[in-house]
């Protein structure tokens, strides 16, 4: 098992990846994507920081360029359920232009932005809220995670990312990739995503009922199989727990 911290500070422009740069990581990561004519950057709604004036921004309901009628219908239903059960806004922005331009993107929470090149045949599962932006032929589908996902405090939906292109995802805190081969436990609230031949189950961290209620450690996700898990170094539930008693009544 190896732990690899993600290096986000280097500008990259290879033939395979879109030219981009991630600065101010791992606490306040800012992503800049340099687009050529013909390239479209899809981003989570509300994440734009700045852009070249001549780029056009379209609001769409999904990452695909065109959506069929049933896709839209299903999309609206899922959007409504997501709104109720928590998760990302369903709308995305498409940035493109007839001349080269740049777009600066940032997530809402303090933390890191990680680049991942998605190749055909690969599948990356992300927690809802982790998707930030993508370029190329990337398909982001919502998967109903079931009760397991809700109890793991990941929300009802996970995102399934496939296709051919570049993907950027965000986390609360720094992102660490852990390559696993066998059982591995992750505290709920620290999971960003995973890929490979992995399944996970919920388990008690130990300590029985007292551990669950008083220890704050309650449930953990036990992963099994071969693959890679992305974890974040901070937990939003812990932040909320820390802030709540400090607020004025």
């Amino acid at each position, binding site marked *: 098992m190896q732990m690899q911290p993600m290096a986000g500070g280097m500008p990259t422009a290879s033939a395979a990846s879109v030219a981009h740069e991630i600065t101010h990581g791992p*606490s*306040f990561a800012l992503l800049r994507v340099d687009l050529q004519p013909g390239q479209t950057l899809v981003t989570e709604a509300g994440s734009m920081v*700045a852009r070249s004036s001549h780029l056009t921004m*379209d609001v769409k309901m999904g990452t695909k360029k065109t959506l069929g009628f049933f896709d839209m219908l299903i999309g609206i239903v899922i959007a409504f359920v997501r709104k109720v059960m928590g998760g990302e806004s369903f709308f995305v922005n498409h940035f493109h232009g007839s001349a080269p331009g740049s777009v600066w993107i940032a997530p809402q929470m*303090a933390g890191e932005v990680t680049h991942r090149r998605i190749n055909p045949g690969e599948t990356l599962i992300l927690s809802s809220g982790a998707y930030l932006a993508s370029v190329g032929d990337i398909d982001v589908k919502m998967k109903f995670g079931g009760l397991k996902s809700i109890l793991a405090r990941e929300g009802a939906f996970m995102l399934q990312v496939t296709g051919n292109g570049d993907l950027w995802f965000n986390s609360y805190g720094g992102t660490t990739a852990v390559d696993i081969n066998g059982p591995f436990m992750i505290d709920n609230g620290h999971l960003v995503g995973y890929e490979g031949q992995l399944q996970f189950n919920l388990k008690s961290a130990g300590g029985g009922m007292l551990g669950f209620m008083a220890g704050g450690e309650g449930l953990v996700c036990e992963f099994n199989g071969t693959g890679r898990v992305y974890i974040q170094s901070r937990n939003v539930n812990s932040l909320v727990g820390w802030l709540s008693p400090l607020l004025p009544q």
Partner: protein
Amino acid sequence: MQIDIGYRPAHSMARVALNPGEQILAESGALVGMSTNVSMTTGMQNKPGGGLLGGLMAGLKRALAGESWFRNTFTANGGPGEVLLAHAMCGDMQVVEVPGTGLHLTSSSFIASTPNVNIETRLQGFGGFFSGEGAFVMQASAQGPNQLVFGSFGGITCLNCDGNLVIDTGHLVAWDSTLTYKVGKSGGGWIASFLSGEGLVCHFQGQGRIWIQSRNPIAYGQYVGGMLPPRKG
């Protein structure tokens, strides 16, 4: 004086090394520590020679802008002194020299400056008000060598505007006064602006530098606030 910023970009702190007799003006509440020979005086001063009424008006405008009524002046007596300053929010800090053409700052980004920097609070118009950023911006001007420290929520990036640039209003920290700007919607149409989540953006024109922050405090507050238990009463 020498100003060094440490612990960037998330938990920045400024260390100001003052020569004997030198002064630095800082935002109220920014003090972390100082050497024992540094004395602090508190005032509402905005311009030298403004008088009590001038000071009161300046303080009132600052209060409406989200800054505090008072500014503190730190003086190193009888020897060199050191003052440590930090912003209330976790984030980045940068030291710049205010050019002769002036510098605009969003309200609450000012942290400290040499005493010869003059800060005016200006009403920015209702565009800024509706975006939740507050209706005010500060304009800094100075004659001669000076230093100004501003802070942000998130990491600070300096962009060079050469023509046109569009910036989300929640991500602005400061910009050269040589730029003209207009607050407006991002996409075409009000529905698109609402659905896109972008709200209001600032269209900049001209030549100059724009400092942006990599996080939007209002969006961050809404995100975290939405998860907090409702307040009683």
